[in-house]
Structures are given as C-alpha cells and as structure tokens.
C-alpha cells in the first residue's frame, strides 16, 4: 500500500514537474543562452535603461497600490464590520464583488466610466464646454487608480476577517484599564490586526506586480515588467523576454517568501478566539454611517454599473451625448446569434471546463496521496501545486510558450503553441493552486477514521471514494472548482500570449471589439463574463477563502 502510494506520488510529481517546473527551467536555460551558457542576455538587460525603468515601475506601482488600497479597504472594513446601518449586509457583500470579477472586466468598466470618452469626462466636457476631453486616462496614474479600485478588496476582506476574529473581552479589558477609544485602537486593535494587514499588503503587492490588464490597456508608453515582457516577445526579442521573465519571477518569489514569513507570524498572534465585539449601534451616527456606506459602495460599484449600461448601447448610436440616447438588447442578441461572436464564449467555456476538471483531478490525487498516503513526496506535491500561484501569469505564459514550441519529445517538449491544446494546458497550470489549496484543506479537515471505518465495514477503495470522500469533500471541491473556472473563464494575461484565432477566448474578443470601436459589444461580453463569474462564485465558491485567486 505504502509502496504503491509512493510510486503513484512519484509519477504524479513527475507529471506536475513537467507541467509546472519544466517550462520554468527551460525559460531559465534560454535566458542563460543554452546551450552556449552565457550571461550576456542578462548584461544586455542591465545595460538598457528601459528595462530598469520597467522594473522600477513594477515595484513602485505595486508599493503605491498597497498604500492606496489600504487607504480605501481598511476604513471600509471598519465601517462595515464595526457599525450597524440599514443595508449593511448587502452592501458589505457587494463591495467585495470585484474580487470575483475578471481583472479585464474591471479595467474596461473603469474605461467606460473614467476614460477620456467615459461618462465622467463627457459630463465635465459638457459642463465646462470644453473643446475636447478634459483628460486622457493613461500612464501610471491611471494604472494606479485601476489597481486601487480593484485591489482594495484584499484589505477590505482581510481586515474584516481580522476584526471578526477579535475577542471582545480583550477590548473590554483595555477599556476597564482606563484606555480611551483611540488608545484601544492604537494599542490593541491595530497590533492584533497586524497579521491580517501584512497578509493583505503582500497579497496586494504580488497581485499588483503580476497585474497585466490595467497597464496593458491604460499604460500607454508607461511599461511595467509584465507589459514589457509581452512587448519584447511580440517584437521578437525572445532572449530579452526570457531574461525579463526570469527577473519578474525572482521578484515574485521574494514576495512569496515575505508572504509566508508573515503567515508564520499569524499563527502566533491568532491565538484566543472569543466572542467578536458587538457592532456599534449609535443612533446619532447611524445615518452618517449609512450615508457613508452607501456612498462608498456606490462609488466603488459605479464602474460595473457603467459597464452594464454601455452594454445596451447599439453600435454607432452614441456620439457626443453625455448619456447614450438609445438602449437596446441588440449587442446581446448579436453575441448569441452570430456564430463568430458566440465562438469566444463557447471557447472560454469549454477550455475553462476542461482545465478546471483536470486541475480538480490532479489536485485530488495529490491531496489524497499527500494527506492519506503518508508518502514522503507529499510536501513536493503541495509545493509544485502552489508555485503557479506565486508566479505572475505572464511568467507562465512565456514559460509555456517557450517550452512547448519545440519538438523534442525525448526531453518532454512538444509543439503545442498554435494548437487548441495550449490554452487549456496553460489554464490548467494556473488553476492547480486554486483547486489544490482547497482540496488539501478539505482533506486535512477530513477525519481519516472515516475512511478506516468504511474500510472496516467492507467498503472497497472505489466505494469509499464514492460514498465517503466525495460527498464529504464536495464543498471543498466545489469551492476550488468554481474559483478555478472563474479564473480560466476570464483569463487575459495568459491568453494574450498563447491564443490562436480559432481558440480566442472572451477576453481577447473584448479587446478586439474595443479596437474596432464596438464598445457596446465589448461591454456585453464583459457583462456576460462578470455575470457568469458571479453566478458560479455565489453558487459554489463562497466557502473558499476570498481573495486567493491569482492576479492577472
């Protein structure tokens, strides 16, 4: 039994190594000029000022995103967790919504609201009677705004969870010792929240570092590492793209090390679990809190409302008016009636489904072997599953396109780029940590005696799987699967490197619709994508930890 488990674990580790580790190694080798082995590409990288600018831009944008997101997310969390006002529960859930929506959807929603021909710009232009749009939404400021708009959710969710975990008696103890409200906040609440805040900060940093959609759409001449990599690749400067990819991966790994160090701290401080403090119900400030809550929620959700509105605008009907004069369902009709428009939807659905299913199967096998099988390779399996979460999507996209564009079966390299297989494979790799994390957690919570009890009652391995493991792990499987499915369905960062015309997914179609100035169609795609994602998430995904989907 143990020997068989070890053999199975070894085979699985080999498969995961081929999927996850091998493409990265191939990329590293090519960056080092294999087979001639040279550091010349790296020194070329170091000589070019634009590379340094992109690296620096990635870093400072990420740090600034952390600050700005915290400034939005933390007060919002206090408002929704510590006060009580009408509509608190619904709004509290709604402001967390952006975390389940694909990043590209947020980006185009932002574009339609604040872009140079968006509602706000149009209104100001009309109001001030300007000749042209009052601003061009591009460059670092735009990227930063979009980031803060979508990533405040990490701070919001982590801080709310941290506040909910606080033990009321600790705060009461502080008050009984004569501490004022401000002092309690400073000396007790904030220190206790620190692990949550550190976790949120590092997650935001990593997400921002990996962010591609926002800098790609709004960056203009402003390049960060992810867009720089794709640009190098499109320009045919493959060696440079490899070096950039390796550099970005290295920065991300440093970030992950910090994240793990902060999670170790969390265990120490996460101790006492008591009754969370009661929500403050002050009659006087109740309406202030309500007004503030509604206002903030409205501001934060406005871009998505805009997206819905724009999706009803037929092509060519909205020119200079502030608000679109005509609203119809024609965009949706064309989406579902014209085969060429339906195709990206079908593509995304089947590719996401295949990738999710495969990621579930691999995650299940790995978790079962690691948790139940007592194999020494358990840690290796778990690490291999986690790696794609730590590395930006662009890194994997480049790695996969490098590894699978050569025909050398004896070293595990096949020509998959340009075929229908490459995107599902890439989605699968990116999905592994999502299903893996969830299923591992599920297995760890499952009492191993249940399996033994079933065995002692004469149930075969298959029957135990069907009657005991599967029903009890269903929530974990559903949560992992739904997050994975949503991520694959809305993927942009990997797709843009690897898609073919035949397999173009929704995100690519949104972008080409925008290029053709079919903004209504682009919005309709965005709405369908957002609706599918939200539906899948609210049906199955809610049991999972929020905010752990990989960035894009």
């Amino acid at each position: 039994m143990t020997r068989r488990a070890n053999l199975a674990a070894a085979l699985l580790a080999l498969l995961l190594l081929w999927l996850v580790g091998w493409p990265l190694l191939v990329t590293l080798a090519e960056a080092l000029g294999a087979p001639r082995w040279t550091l010349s590409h790296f020194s070329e990288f170091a000589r070019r000022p634009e590379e340094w600018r992109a690296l620096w831009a990635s870093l400072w944008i990420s740090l600034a995103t952390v600050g700005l997101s915290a400034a939005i997310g933390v007060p919002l969390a206090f408002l929704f967790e510590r006060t009580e006002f009408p509509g608190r529960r619904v709004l509290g859930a709604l402001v967390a919504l952006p975390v389940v929506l694909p990043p590209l959807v947020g980006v185009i929603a932002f574009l339609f609201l604040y872009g140079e021909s968006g509602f706000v710009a149009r209104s100001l232009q009309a109001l001030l009677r300007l000749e042209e749009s009052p601003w061009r939404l591009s460059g670092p400021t735009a990227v930063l705004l979009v980031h803060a708009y979508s990533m405040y959710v990490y701070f919001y969710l982590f801080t709310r969870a941290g506040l909910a975990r606080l033990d009321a008696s600790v705060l009461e103890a502080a008050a009984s010792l004569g501490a004022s409200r401000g002092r309690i906040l400073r000396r007790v609440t904030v220190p206790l929240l620190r692990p949550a805040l550190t976790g949120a900060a590092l997650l935001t940093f990593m997400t921002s570092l990996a962010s591609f959609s926002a800098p790609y759409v709004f960056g203009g001449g402003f390049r960060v590492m992810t867009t720089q990599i794709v640009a190098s690749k499109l320009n045919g400067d493959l060696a440079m793209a490899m070096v950039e990819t390796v550099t970005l991966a290295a920065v991300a790994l440093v970030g992950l090390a910090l994240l793990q160090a902060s999670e170790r701290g969390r265990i120490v401080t996460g101790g006492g679990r008591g009754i969370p403090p009661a929500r403050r119900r002050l009659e006087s400030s109740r309406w202030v809190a309500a007004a503030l809550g509604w206002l903030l929620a409205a501001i934060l959700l406005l871009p998505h409302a805009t997206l819905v509105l724009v999706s009803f605008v037929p092509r060519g009907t909205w020119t200079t008016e502030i608000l679109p004069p005509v609203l119809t369902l024609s965009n949706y009709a064309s989406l579902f009636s014209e085969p060429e428009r339906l195709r990206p939807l079908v593509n995304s659905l089947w590719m996401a489904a295949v990738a999710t299913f495969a990621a579930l199967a691999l995650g299940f096998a790995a978790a079962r072997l690691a948790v139940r099988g007592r194999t020494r390779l358990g840690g290796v399996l778990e690490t291999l599953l986690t790696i794609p979460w730590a590395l930006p999507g662009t890194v994997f996209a480049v790695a996969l396109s490098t590894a699978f564009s050569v025909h050398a079966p004896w070293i595990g390299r096949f020509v998959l780029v340009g075929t229908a297989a490459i995107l599902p494979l890439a989605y699968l790799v990116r999905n592994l940590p999502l299903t893996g994390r969830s299923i591992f957690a599920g297995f760890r919570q499952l009492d191993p005696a249940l399996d033994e009890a079933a065995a002692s009652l004469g149930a075969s391995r298959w029957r135990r799987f069907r009657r005991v493991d599967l029903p009890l792990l269903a929530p974990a499987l559903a949560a992992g699967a739904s997050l994975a499915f949503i991520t694959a369905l809305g993927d942009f960062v990997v797709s843009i490197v690897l898609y073919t015309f035949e397999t173009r997914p929704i995100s690519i179609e949104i972008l080409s619709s925008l290029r053709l100035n079919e903004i209504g169609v682009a919005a309709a795609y965005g709405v369908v994508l957002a609706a599918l994602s939200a539906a899948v998430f609210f049906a199955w995904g809610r049991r999972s930890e929020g905010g752990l989907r990989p960035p894009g």
Partner: protein
Amino acid sequence: MGPGGAGEGEVMPPLTPNLSPQAGRGSGFLRLDRLDKHFGALHVTRDVSLDVPKSEILALLGPSGSGKTTVLRLVAGFETPDSGRVVVEGEDVTRLPPERRHFGVVFQHYALFPHMTVGQNVAFGLESGSVPREERAARVAEALGAVDLAGFESRRVTEISGGQQQRVALARALAPRPRVLLLDEPLSNLDPTLRGRTRRELKRLIRSIGITTLFVTHEQEEAFELGDRVALMNAGRLEQVGSARELYESPASRFAAAFIGRSSVVPAHWEKAIGRARLPGGAAWPAAPAGDLVDGSPVDVVVRPESLGFATARNGTAAEGRVVERRFAGRETYFAVLLDAGVEVEVLAAPDAAQVGWNVFVAPAHGGPSPRAYPRIAGVE
C-alpha cells in the same frame, strides 16, 4: 518522561510468568504472533504476542504512547506490521486489507459518516456484504434495537447526543456480524456520569452476542470491569496478561505494580539473607522479590496503601516520618507520609489514626498484598 523512558540497552528481566504459554503456537480464536511495528525511528510495537479465545473480551491497557492503539490498528488492518502475524480462526489475515477482514471497529471519536443518517450509517456495512437488499432494513432495525435506539433510523448523526452516537457506532460495527469486535477507547468521549452505565450495557451486549472482543483503554477501572482478561502494555511491549486480580495482587513487573492500583515506590537495598528490603532510615520491610535479587543490590519497593499501617513504636520494620496530607475517602482515609528518608508514601488507615503534622511510624501491615521488591533500573522514576 514516563515509565519506560529507560534506554534501549536496559534489559528487563523476563518477568512474564502470566503470558500465555502457548503464544506463538496457540489455539486462540484471534492470535497475534510476535507483532513488530516501527513508525520511522520509533519502535511502537515490540514483539507482541497474544491469544484471545473465542468470545473472550480482552482489554489492552496502558498509558498513552504504550502502543496499545497501534496493536488494535494492526489487528484491524489499518497498519501493516513490519513482522509478525495476525491470525483469525487459523486464517492469516496479516496482509489482508481491512475491507476483507470482516472485523467490526468502534473508533474513539466514533467516525460516524456525518453526511448520512443513523440508518444509513448502520446499513453501510451491509451494502457491500452478502446481505440481500430486502433484509437490510430488518438488520439495521435489529442492530439499532440491540443498542436501545430502535426507530432512530432517519435521525441525523449530528443531532443525537454523544452517548447515542457511541451506540450508533457500536450498532454500525455489529450489524454486518463481524468475526471480531475492536474498540478503541470506546467510552473516553462520554461524560463521567454516563460512562459507568454505558460500560455495563456494553459488557452485557457483547456478552449476549458472544463476539470475541479486543478493546483499548487507558483507564484501569474500565479495563477491569469490561475485560475478562487484561493485557498491560508499556513502551510497545506486553508487560503482563491476566485477570484483574492477578494484575493487582501479583504484578509481574515494577511497571505493572506501579501502574495498576494506588501504590508508593520506596528505594531500598535488598538483604538476601533475611529476604527484606532495607530502607535508608534503617527499617527493613518484608517484601516479595521479583526474581532472583542480588544481595545488597538497589531495589524499588512497590507497596499498596492498604499494605501499610501506622506502628505504635519504633521497631525493626517501622520507618519514621511526618503526616503531610490527609485525604478522606469514606470509611477509611489516605494519609500521605513524608518519610525521613525523603520519600513520600501513602497509608490507608482509620480516619482518626493520625493528624497532619504528627510524627508517625510507618510499617507494612497485615492483610494487604505483600510489598514487592524490583531491581532498580537506572533512569526509571
């Protein structure tokens, strides 16, 4: 560090007079033959051999970490021994997976399937066996009836009490009519008031079925009341197998003597000529030697509270000390006495025999089991 923390090199004399003489060949219904198991570098089960006759209830007793649960898991088939065999009715089942052993197991935390009803839990073991579909409902009802839970079929296992869960676990294990019943600390999750009653019901039920039973417990009272025989384990080894009375009155090892019942351990030196143990203060206590003790060698005298009494005057057997604590226990009282030699002993006597603070003489009394002298092993407390 518990008893048995002694180094690997320290060899206990072979104190196994009560081990079944036929171990290894035996005629038992369930036979464990020299089971050995390591977890990594940890040697959890050492050469364990046991013969359990048909319909016997055998208690595996020992402190935590003594390997008793591992023995149970080896029998159940959840673990495979490094060497040794498990034989049932002459059939070697050592390599048989648990699902083909046809043993019933009751787990410490019951391991009821939380997504199934009580009835579905009990029916689970009937589905893969040879029980025809139409008979299953009757068998489930029968099993639930036996544990006094008739009519509970459609209840959720999460909405019944701990005691009821324990009985569902028992009904589930018994429903397929297993060859052997294995219980892992079956009562440890019940609150103390329920434990005594459940214990008696459990015994009555197992008796009425007549099933060969092996159960693990760390509670001596439970082992003595439920088990026909008790197998005492320590540090992966079987220390002694016998009836409760045998274990109490003639413990085969220092560990058995100290673990079973209340006792005090007094360091002394063996005086072979007079067959007594000389205490540091000079008193010489009569004691039964475990094996052949060398004259003058250091020994541990293990003595029960009822085997000690207060002496009125200094004589050859009286050790001087001071009463430091008095614990009332009904008709009699436990006195903790700190001997001048620095050792504390427990004496059972009439409530008014002494007061805290009194200087007293302590000597072996008539009536109780005789104090026993064991060779002192370095490192053993």
